[in-house]
């Protein structure tokens, strides 16, 4: 209950695996936008959560999906912690696996 009154952080860190590079994701910003701003060549196409190109796997930490990933990701991917970076806000620091060579 007291977490309701806890001051939310203005940004969280995302550690990109396997490189280990760390980026900051501001509140109100999504993971993809933050990564692109930091110069990361994260693969993407539509930026509205419909193509699945920016798919990544959350290894640790909590996120807040901005849309229902169920239309793009399959059942197994959802259970395995996959997310669409362009529609992912962070609730804690995270560690995320992303294939930058796509």
């Amino acid at each position: 209950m007291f977490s309701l009154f806890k001051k939310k952080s203005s940004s969280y860190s995302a550690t990109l695996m396997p490189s280990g590079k760390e980026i900051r994701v501001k509140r109100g910003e999504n993971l993809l936008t933050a990564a692109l701003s930091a110069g990361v060549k994260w693969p993407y196409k539509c930026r509205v959560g419909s193509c699945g190109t920016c798919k990544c796997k959350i290894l640790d930490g909590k996120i807040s999906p901005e849309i229902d990933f169920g239309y793009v990701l399959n059942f197994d991917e959802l259970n395995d912690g996959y997310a669409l970076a362009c529609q992912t806000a962070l609730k804690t620091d995270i560690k995320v696996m992303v294939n930058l060579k796509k």
Partner: protein
Amino acid sequence: MKTFYVNARYLIVPVMTIATILGLFIGNYFAWLGVILFGLNTIVDTLTKNIHLRADFDDNGNSYGIKRLQYAVMYLMLPAFIFLQVILAWRLYQYTSVTSFETLSFLGLSYQSGITGFNLIGSVLSAGLWAGLGIIYGHELSHNRKEGFLVSRLIMALSGASHFTYAHVYNHHLDLGHEDDPATAPRGRNVYSHAWLSHVGQSQYSYDLERDKLKKQKKSFFSLSNKWILGYLYSLPSILLFVWAGGVLGVLSLTVIWAISNFLLEALNFMGHYGLIREKGKPVEHRHSWDNDNLFTSWFFIEIGRQGDHHVRGETYFWELDDVDAPNYGIGYFSLFVLTLFPPVFRRFTQKLLDDWDENKATVAEKEIANQFKNLSIS
């Protein structure tokens, strides 16, 4: 001052929607106010066709747009559009129950109780046009997180088009410029057939999307998790309201409102990508959308006309969208809408623009597809 100007300029639709509601409330010839405003807007849009502005940013590159204010306005448009339907239903009730004509007062505002058939027609047309223009908020909010997405669905449901929100994000943004996108009008199609084909096509897409999603989740198609069914259920209160208020006449009135508002929605889709071509699987680029960014269109339609930028940066707030050298009609939406109503005139107008696109913007593969249209004498 700049902050005020940048934010206030997007309030034209809210102000005019309230004026239309007041017109319906005051009654008599004021019931036609929504129609008159639509006509006046067409004139202003035509007069300002040569004034084009860029997005406004301060020296540090920050936008002057106030996110909380713009979102509050967009969310408040939902109750405004609900109120528009409620006021019309009240007028329908007065007409069917043959309420006597008298001048009454409410909170100091004089209004005419009772309505003639002629003014009821004006009320229905006014409500249809402004419900249709409300779609710009349904569109903008469809690109937002949870609560915004729901408000978008509810605004669209007032026009019986809640399927739009899913089809727009998952189909249109992914497939535009290709035959897989029902909202993209191929060369040669007119706005009348596009309105029908696009509406049905998007609803079909939304149906398939839910069917496949629920199958993946091992859930029944007939469940409240089915957003396609749920979307149409959101429209049920409007149907019940108009049946209660006017019986058969109420159903007829709601049909007219939905027909007008959906026609306006599909006309926007029609104008946004008419005749532009993209190879399947290739990235969406600025050249795959038409921009309509003259002053009045930009302000009135909350920059929905900056389609080129919007389709490449779909997550960008409308007040940050900018000119990206996308193909441009050179006139605003109101003026262009009038042209679309006359298909031969519209085709003549777009012919040169499409020839220019083929020549200067299309890739080799896109040119080949354009040639296939030309070989069929479709331009």
